[in-house]
């Protein structure tokens, strides 16, 4: 069931108990977890946090850690699967689920005792009515029970007619139910960021601070950067957080000097779609950010020329553009944003900015929310062998704390490597015309043996690649139809087991984040008997045996045509 008063129905229930917290592998989940940790620590709530990569791990972790645990919190996992059926928990175990994955599993929605959904009622769920889904009592058992017709034979005929009538109704109801379910589960998408939900909780408890707000902001920005939220919804949420920002930072406006440099200050600002430029050079950032790179078609000579022209038009000397942003001339650094936006308009990059936030603490540290998302994700999806995946998850969790700026800086470097690899892969795929229009969708396969292929064995990085590729393809394609095509990208996951990671993303033209690949992948797999693993909480990301790839995609094409 949906929780209406998150404080009363969730927090007050667990405040003197031990809690098991299961956290999925995404930046939003990490941020939500951070906020929850802070609240729990204030109130001495003992907890155990376990990182969760997928469904299988969810089951294992629950089995292993649930001894003596009565309360389980799930962050960005568990919402879209039938928890009770999957985990088979004891009756006293209660699940609190903050999960942005949609659609929410309907059994979770209608279970009043054990499943509590921490999701804002303002979200658009389109939950079908209870009566359309569940029919209680007698009708349940008569479907299979022919033998219990022990009624006297005289009445049998009339009874038979009644039974027939009832069965017909039943069949109709079931068909309707099936259709409702089909409609409900047709698309996978995302709802409100879990970090925002946790921040809301903190605010309702008057425990909010700039630190918590920042995590809320980073969580929301993660959704935006990774195309998990529609622009309208993003703007609404940003507006909401902006109010909190003003409230928590108003003091700084008047007497700037009374605040210690160690304090954190957050303010709203228009942010450019230039990844990491404050920590890179403008030139590198332009090259590696999908929006300007695709607008200029940076992979062509002409595109490069155009970009140089653009820079010249702005009045920025190339030397300045190519050196580290931090060492650019003070004057240029200050006036750069104005010049940049002006030139963007002239060159047709109207969409270069978006509303976002900047945090500042200490003398040195000035971070924009998007860069933090890149850094945290870079750390979380690090492919170096030094640590395990869960090890990097914890590093990423650490780097969100202000005292661990060093780890965040490492994350920034890792993010640059991710972006560089993505950009290079996109360029070579465009050059080699390896992005194929398979009919109903665009398709790219990253071959094995590619040196940087390991980067794409991580779902989020593969997602960034898919969106960049799609944008680049659309930019080069003459046919307008390409904007209407969704895209599928596959990359090797594990060379030893011969598996691949596959992601599907909606068409470029579509404003909506609705994604129908979850269902399509499932059907294609069933039809072809492909060995697939639907383990990711995002159903549009699956694992499969590389051998089964061609038959799987053939089926997918005919399915979607």
């Amino acid at each position, binding site marked *: 069931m949906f929780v209406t008063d998150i404080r009363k129905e969730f927090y007050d229930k667990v405040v003197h108990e*031990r809690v098991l917290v299961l956290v999925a592998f995404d930046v939003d989940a990490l941020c939500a977890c951070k906020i929850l*940790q802070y609240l*729990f*620590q204030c109130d*001495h*709530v*003992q*907890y*155990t*946090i*376990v*990182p969760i990569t997928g469904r299988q791990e969810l089951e294992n972790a629950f089995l*292993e*850690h649930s*001894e*003596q645990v009565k309360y389980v919190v799930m962050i960005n996992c568990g919402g879209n699967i039938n928890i009770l059926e999957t985990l088979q928990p004891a009756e006293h175990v209660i699940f609190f689920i903050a999960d942005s994955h949609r659609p929410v599993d309907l059994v979770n929605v209608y279970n009043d005792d054990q499943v509590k959904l921490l999701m804002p009622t303002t979200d658009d769920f389109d939950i079908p009515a209870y009566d359309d889904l569940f029919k209680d009592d007698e009708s349940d058992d008569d479907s299979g029970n022919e033998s219990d017709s022990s009624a006297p034979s005289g009445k049998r005929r009339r009874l038979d007619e009644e039974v027939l009538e009832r069965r017909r109704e039943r069949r109709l109801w079931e068909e309707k139910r099936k259709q409702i379910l089909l409609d409900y589960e047709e698309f996978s998408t995302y709802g409100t960021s879990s970090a925002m939900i946790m921040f809301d909780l903190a605010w309702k408890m008057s425990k909010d601070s700039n630190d918590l707000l920042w995590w809320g902001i980073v969580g929301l920005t993660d959704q935006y950067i990774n195309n998990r939220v529609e622009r309208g919804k993003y703007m609404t949420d940003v507006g909401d957080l902006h109010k909190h920002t003003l409230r928590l930072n108003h003091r700084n406006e008047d007497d700037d000097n009374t605040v210690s440099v160690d304090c954190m200050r957050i303010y709203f600002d228009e942010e450019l779609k230039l990844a990491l430029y404050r920590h890179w050079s403008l030139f590198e950032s332009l090259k590696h950010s999908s929006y300007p790179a695709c607008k200029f078609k940076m992979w062509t000579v002409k595109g490069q020329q155009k970009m140089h022209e653009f820079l010249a038009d702005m009045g920025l000397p190339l030397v300045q553009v190519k050196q580290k942003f931090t060492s650019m001339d003070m004057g240029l650094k200050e006036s750069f944003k104005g010049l940049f936006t002006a030139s963007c308009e002239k060159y047709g990059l109207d969409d270069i900015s978006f509303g976002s936030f900047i945090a500042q603490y200490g003398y040195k540290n000035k971070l924009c929310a998007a860069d933090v998302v890149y850094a945290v994700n870079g750390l979380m999806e690090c492919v170096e062998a030094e640590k*395990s995946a*869960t*090890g990097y*998850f*914890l590093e990423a*969790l*650490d780097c969100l*704390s202000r*005292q661990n700026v060093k780890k965040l800086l490492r994350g920034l470097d890792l993010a640059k490597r991710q972006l560089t690899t993505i950009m290079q892969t996109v360029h070579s795929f465009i050059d080699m015309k390896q992005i194929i229009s398979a009919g109903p969708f665009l398709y790219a396969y990253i071959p094995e043996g590619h040196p940087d292929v390991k980067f794409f064995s991580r779902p989020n990085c593969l997602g960034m690649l898919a969106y960049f590729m799609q944008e680049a393809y659309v930019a080069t394609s003459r046919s307008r139809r390409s904007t209407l095509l969704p895209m599928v990208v596959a990359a090797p996951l594990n060379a030893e087991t011969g598996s691949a990671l596959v992601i599907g993303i909606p068409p470029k033209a579509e404003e909506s984040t609705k994604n129908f690949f979850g269902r399509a992948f499932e059907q294609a797999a069933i039809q072809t008997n492909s060995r697939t693993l639907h383990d990711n909480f995002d159903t549009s990301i699956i694992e499969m045996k590389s051998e089964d790839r061609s038959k799987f995609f053939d089926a997918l094409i005919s399915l979607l045509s």
Partner: protein
Amino acid sequence: MYGEKAVELIRQLHRSPDGSLPPFNEDGIRQVLEEMRVLFEQNQADVNKTVDGAPGLFPGVQLRHAALERNKRCLLAYMFNRMERLRAMRWEFGSVLPPDIKYNLSEQEIQWFSRYNKSLAAYMRSIGGPSGGGLDLTQDLKPPKSLYIEVRCLMDHGEFETEDGTILLLKKDSQHFLQRSQCEHLIRQGVLEHIL
């Protein structure tokens, strides 16, 4: 030169890093003891000869005597410094030593360790008088900043029962918020990492 073998034992200890113990050098000790035996016998003989009137033996006796004292000092210092490290290990590793450290000990050192353990335990139990219930001095090594702390599991440690009977699974890469006093020893042993 006399005393070389003995000082070699000392050098061995000097070279081995803090917190480690090189294998007990039984053979080295035997050789030093043998050198001492010979020195002593020669001195006995020379002293007897001097008593009998032989001249000029005194410098040799003097030299050997110095060598005997030196050897004794080195042997005892070898034993003492090993014992010191072993004592420190009681505080760092707890009452049970890792097997490969134990492997490097002599039988007598193992006995010493268990006697030290016993005496220490008896002392800690006695603190506060018969009704006091004792005080574990190997805990509370840092001034407490907070009642609860956040810890991260660095290895699979299995189940762990807290004071109030709660059972936790300490699995690698899980993170827990626990009473400081209950998990401090696991941090010291490197099972958990304290997260600030």
